[in-house]
């Protein structure tokens, strides 16, 4: 009788602590994307540096590539930008930029100032392609495989840990 008496409050306490502990470790801003494992939504947009040329995901079939959503007005893009420049220099995986809801001239100036890691950037002036990709917080980065399927999504700046532990291993695996 006596051990039973305090075991119920103890069990409730342990369960509560477990829930709160898990809850503390989670980022409520990170909403799991339903797009992972789905084909990358189609678009055809003009390039930032060559407005007469266009780019579509179907042009990149057979390649593993990163689609990085950025903008010149985006503050946290500055955080991940040096890492992207480094990644581009290492020449492991092509990075394409989606200049999201940005003035193309401001975008070009921003890249001229901070370095341009992108094989090409395309301009999503009114944010429609962003909506198709479920973008809600710039920067966001999608890893797209040879068949054009989204395999990974990074919400917020790419951290060195995310790059080393998640993105690059997955890139190598998909490039096989």
């Amino acid at each position, binding site marked *: 009788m006596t051990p039973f008496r305090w075991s119920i409050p103890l069990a409730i306490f342990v369960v509560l602590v477990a829930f709160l502990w898990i809850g503390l470790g989670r980022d409520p801003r990170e*909403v799991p*994307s*339903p*797009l992972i494992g789905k084909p990358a939504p189609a678009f055809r947009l003009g390039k930032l540096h060559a407005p007469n040329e266009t780019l579509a995901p179907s042009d990149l079939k057979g390649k593993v590539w990163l689609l990085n959503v950025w903008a010149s007005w985006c503050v946290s893009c500055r955080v991940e930008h040096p890492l992207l420049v480094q990644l581009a220099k290492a020449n492991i995986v092509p990075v394409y930029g989606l200049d999201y809801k940005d003035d193309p001239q401001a975008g070009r100036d921003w890249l001229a100032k901070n370095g341009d890691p992108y094989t090409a950037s395309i301009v999503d002036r009114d944010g429609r392609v962003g*909506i*198709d990709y479920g973008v809600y917080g710039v920067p966001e980065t999608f890893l797209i495989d040879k068949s054009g399927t989204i395999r990974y999504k990074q919400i917020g700046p790419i951290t060195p840990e995310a790059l080393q532990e998640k993105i690059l291993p997955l890139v190598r695996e998909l490039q096989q």
Partner: protein
Amino acid sequence: MRNLTAAALLLIATLVSAASMEPSPGAALDARLKKLETELRCLVCQNQTLADSNADLADDLRREVRELAISGKSDDEIKAYLVARYGDFVLYNPPVKPTTWLLWFGPFVLAIGGVGLWWLILRRRAKMAAADTTAAQARGRKLLEDDASGA
């Protein structure tokens, strides 16, 4: 001539104000969108509905929802369109499915469990009280009996 101009202006003004008074054909659509937007979440400021939010993305999503509605999509189709892009999180009312069973039914399970526990405790207390009473009565009777035999 001046009178005529004044009269024409007056007429135009009356017509314009009358036109703006009439319910516009978009009123039904506006009402429908208003309702739909309160059922959708703004992903930037997560505790606000699409209708309440001033975020840039909310503007874009409202525009998208309006265009979909005008193109003849039903409310459910519009919701499905957004869920395909942003996940169930975009809905203020989460759908009932195995991963959300705990969310939907957990409170009822807790309430029923609580009532059950309460009932168990009450029953045990009643039993104990009854046992106490029986014991006290027995003690009282014994005292009386002792008293009677002693006298």
